[in-house]
């Protein structure tokens, strides 16, 4: 009889022979592995997922950096060339900036909804 089993039976005030036999069954079952186990290639799958996650993060970082550089470039260009929003399409755009903001917000919202729906589809296939 193991030390744990002896201790348990000793602390159990109702402990008698029947209890000890029942405890033996309980302790034997507690040592058994549950039916669920991960497959042989589990570690490889997780490593691959972690690598993908790192790559996605890196891609996002580059995208952010690219956008930031683009904005800085645009500002520098405007300052250096003394560009003014007075010509043709730019004149139209400057007068309807609310429409442009709405269009950008709408497109972003559409992408967000699309992403959400795609994720749910992945989660509940079929």
């Amino acid at each position, binding site marked *: 009889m193991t030390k744990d089993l002896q201790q*348990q039976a000793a602390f159990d005030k109702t402990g008698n022979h029947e209890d000890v036999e029942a405890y033996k069954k*309980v302790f034997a079952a*507690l*040592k058994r592995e549950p039916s669920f*186990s991960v*497959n042989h290639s*589990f*570690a490889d799958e997780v*490593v691959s*997922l972690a690598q993908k996650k790192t790559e996605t993060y890196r891609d996002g970082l580059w995208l952010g950096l690219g956008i930031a550089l683009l904005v800085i470039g645009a500002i520098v260009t405007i300052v250096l060339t003394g560009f003014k929003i007075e010509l043709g399409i730019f004149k139209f755009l400057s007068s309807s900036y609310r429409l442009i903001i709405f269009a950008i917000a709408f497109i972003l919202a559409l992408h967000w909804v699309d992403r959400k729906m795609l994720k749910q589809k992945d989660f509940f296939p079929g």
Partner: protein
Amino acid sequence: MTDDRALVSQITNGDMQAFRLLIKQHERLVAHMIGRLIDQAEDRKELCQDVFLKVYEKLGEFNFQSRLSTWIATIAYRHAINHLRKRKIEIHNIDESEGFQNQFVSDGNPEQELAEKDTGNLVMKFIEQLPAQYKAVLTLYHLDGLTYPEIGEVLNMPEGTVKNYLFRARQLLKEKVKRYFGKEELL
């Protein structure tokens, strides 16, 4: 602990072979915890993956105040509990009342279930019916060999409570075994 330090340092420096080794070393521990706490077979593998991805993400914050396995078991336990909450699956909290204990012991039909030839399998079924904290304590102690203080750290409870839960969980199982198998079969 020294091995843990070397392994963590290799992984944080981008060594994916070291991460693979970490997974191999701890996959049983994580599978035990997820397998015991989560009943939905289709969710288990994904949850185990999520646990290790979290480990990978947070490894830089690991401060070596405990063993790496204790830290990973903590992440696995919290992940399982969060999953149960998210899915709105009832987490049976520990109820010290006699009502709960009597109900646990008297639930089920011995005549029907004794068709199960393997007594070990039947006791495993009883374990599945226990509240989550009892299952976690039993698993960490009996399958993964964690000490009382380590289990207390994983489940965020004092050592005394761990001992108490361990004792009560085994006692409940014993009572249920007695009810199912009867005096004649046990003696």
